[in-house]
C-alpha cells in the first residue's frame, strides 16, 4: 500500500515537472508559429532593419532591440555600484540593530509590482528629467533610471546574501594577518562571493530586459534609433504592450510575435547563464 502511494506520488511529481518543460516548449512553438509569416517575409534582415512602419508593411526590430539593450545597459550601469554599496554596508558594515530593518525594507521594495515603479516614474521622474536634462522627459534615460531603481533592491538583497555566505573564520584569518575591514571586503568577501554576485547581476539583467510595465509609461514607444538619451525610444516589451491591440494586418501581427520570440530567446539565454554558470551550488568543504 505504502509502495503504491509512493509510486503514484513519484509519477505525479514527475508528470508535473515534465509539464513545466512542455509548457516552455509550447510557448516557444506558439511564438514560432505566429512569427513564421514575418520570418518568411524579412528573414534575418528583421533584426538589422531600423524602419518600423506599419502603414508601409515594413517591420524592422533594430530600434526595439537597441532600446532594450541601451535601457538595460543604463539600468545596470546605474544599479550595480549602488547595489554593491548597499550589500557591502548590510553584510559587513552595518550594526546588527540596523541590518534587519534595512534588510527587510529592501526586500519589501523588491516586492513592489513593477507597474507602480512605472506610474511613479511617469508622475515624478519624467518632470525631473525634463527639467534637468531637457527634452520631453519621456525618454530612454528615464526608462534606464526607472529600471535601475526597480532592479536595485533585488540586486542588493541577493548580493548581500551572497556576501553573507563568506565564513567568519575566513574573514578572521585576514584580520589576523593585519587586514583592515576594507581589505577584508575587497580581498576576501567579494572574491569569495564573486560568482553569486555576478549571478545576481545577470538575473537582474534578465528582469530588466524583459520588463514591461515599469518602462511602458516612460519610454514613449518611438521606433527610432537615437544616440540622444533624452529622446523617446522603445524596447521590445514596450512595443509589444503598446501595439498588439492595433496590429491590423497579419504581417504586423506576425512581426510582433517575432519580437516576442527574440525576447524569449534572449531572456532564456541570460537566465540560463546566470543559473547554470554562476549560481551553481558551491563545491562543499572548502
Amino acid at each position, binding site marked *: 500500500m505504502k509502495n503504491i502511494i509512493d509510486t503514484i506520488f513519484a509519477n505525479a511529481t514527475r508528470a508535473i515537472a515534465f509539464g513545466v518543460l512542455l509548457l516552455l516548449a509550447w510557448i516557444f512553438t506558439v511564438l514560432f508559429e505566429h512569427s513564421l509569416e514575418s520570418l518568411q517575409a524579412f528573414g534575418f534582415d528583421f533584426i538589422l532593419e531600423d524602419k518600423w512602419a506599419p502603414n508601409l508593411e515594413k517591420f524592422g526590430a533594430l530600434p526595439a532591440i537597441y532600446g532594450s539593450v541601451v535601457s538595460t545597459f543604463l539600468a545596470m550601469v546605474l544599479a550595480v555600484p549602488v547595489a554593491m554599496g548597499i550589500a557591502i554596508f548590510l553584510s559587513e558594515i552595518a550594526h546588527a540593530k540596523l541590518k534587519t530593518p534595512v534588510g527587510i525594507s529592501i526586500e519589501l521594495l523588491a516586492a513592489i509590482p513593477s507597474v507602480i515603479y512605472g506610474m511613479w516614474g511617469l508622475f515624478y521622474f519624467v518632470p525631473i528629467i525634463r527639467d534637468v536634462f531637457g527634452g520631453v522627459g519621456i525618454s530612454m534615460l528615464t526608462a534606464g533610471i526607472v529600471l535601475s531603481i526597480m532592479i536595485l533592491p533585488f540586486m542588493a538583497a541577493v548580493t548581500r546574501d551572497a556576501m553573507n555566505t563568506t565564513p567568519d573564520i575566513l574573514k*578572521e584569518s*585576514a*584580520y*589576523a*594577518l*593585519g*587586514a583592515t575591514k576594507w581589505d577584508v571586503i575587497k*580581498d576576501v568577501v567579494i*572574491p569569495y562571493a*564573486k560568482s553569486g554576485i555576478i549571478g545576481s547581476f545577470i538575473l537582474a539583467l534578465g528582469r530588466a530586459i524583459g520588463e514591461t510595465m515599469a518602462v511602458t509609461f516612460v519610454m514613449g514607444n518611438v521606433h527610432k534609433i537615437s544616440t540622444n538619451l533624452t529622446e523617446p525610444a522603445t524596447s521590445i516589451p514596450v512595443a509589444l504592450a503598446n501595439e498588439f491591440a492595433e496590429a491590423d494586418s497579419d504581417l504586423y501581427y506576425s512581426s510582433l510575435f517575432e519580437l516576442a520570440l527574440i525576447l524569449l530567446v534572449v531572456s532564456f539565454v541570460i537566465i540560463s547563464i546566470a543559473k547554470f554558470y554562476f549560481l551553481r551550488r558551491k563545491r562543499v568543504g572548502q
Partner: protein
Amino acid sequence: MATIVEITEEKALEVKNFEFTYAGADVPSVKKLDMPVAKNSITALIGPSGCGKTTLLRSFNRMHDLYPGNKYEGEILFKERNILLPKEDLIRLRIQIGMIFQKPTAFPMSIFDNVAYGLRLQGLKNKTELKDRVEKALQDAAIWNEVKDRLTHDANGLSGGQQQRLCIARAVAVEPEVLLFDEPTSALDPISTGGIEELIVQLRERVSIIIVTHNMQQAARVSDYTGFMYLGELIELGRTEELFVTPREKLTEEYITGKFG
C-alpha cells in the same frame, strides 16, 4: 588559587588578573586569570569543551574586537606594553601575534597570493623580495616541495593538511613573534596531524607558540608547558612532563586521568 610553575625562560607574554566577558553575557567566560607564556617554547592549553581556551587565545590578538560589546579587564603584557589598552594598534598587534584556526582557511586566491597576502598588506611590492619571502615561508612550513610547481593554482585545490600548512606559511611569512593555534588539527586526518605537530615543534626556534587542543596526547607530544583550564579559570600551569605525570591540583589529575571531560 591556581598553581603556576616558575618560568625560567624569558617571557613572551604575561597575563595578569585577566577577565573576559562576551557581549550580553552575565558572567565572564575567562575569570581572574594569571599566566606567563615562555618565549620560544610551546604552551598548550587543555581543558574540557567550553572552559574558555578559545576565548583566552583570541584575546591575545584582540580578535574579540571584531564583534561589538565584548569586554576585557586586567592586563596582557607583550613587549612591555598592555595590549588591552584602547590605544593599542590592532593591525601591528596582529602582525606580531599571528593565528591559525580550527579549519584550514585558504583565501579564494592562488597559493602564492595566499602566502604573499600579509606581506602585501604591509606594502611590500618588490617582486623578487616577495618571491623570496613566499618561498622561505613555504619552506618553513614544510610545504614548498609539494607546491613549488603550482604556485599560481587556486589554493582551494590543496588537501586539508596542505591547506593548513599553507595557512601556517601565510602566518609565518610576516615574521610574527607569537603564533596562536586554536585546535589546528581538529579537522585533519592522523597523518596530516602528525605533519602539523612536527612543524609546530620546529617553529619554536623562531616564535613563541600557544596551542589550544582538546587532545591531551597532542599537548603531551608537542608542548613544553601545559595549562589546564576549567570553567574559565586556569587551574594549573606546569612543565608538560611534570603536569601529566605529577599534577599538583586534584582537578588536573581528575581531568588527565579521564574522570571527567
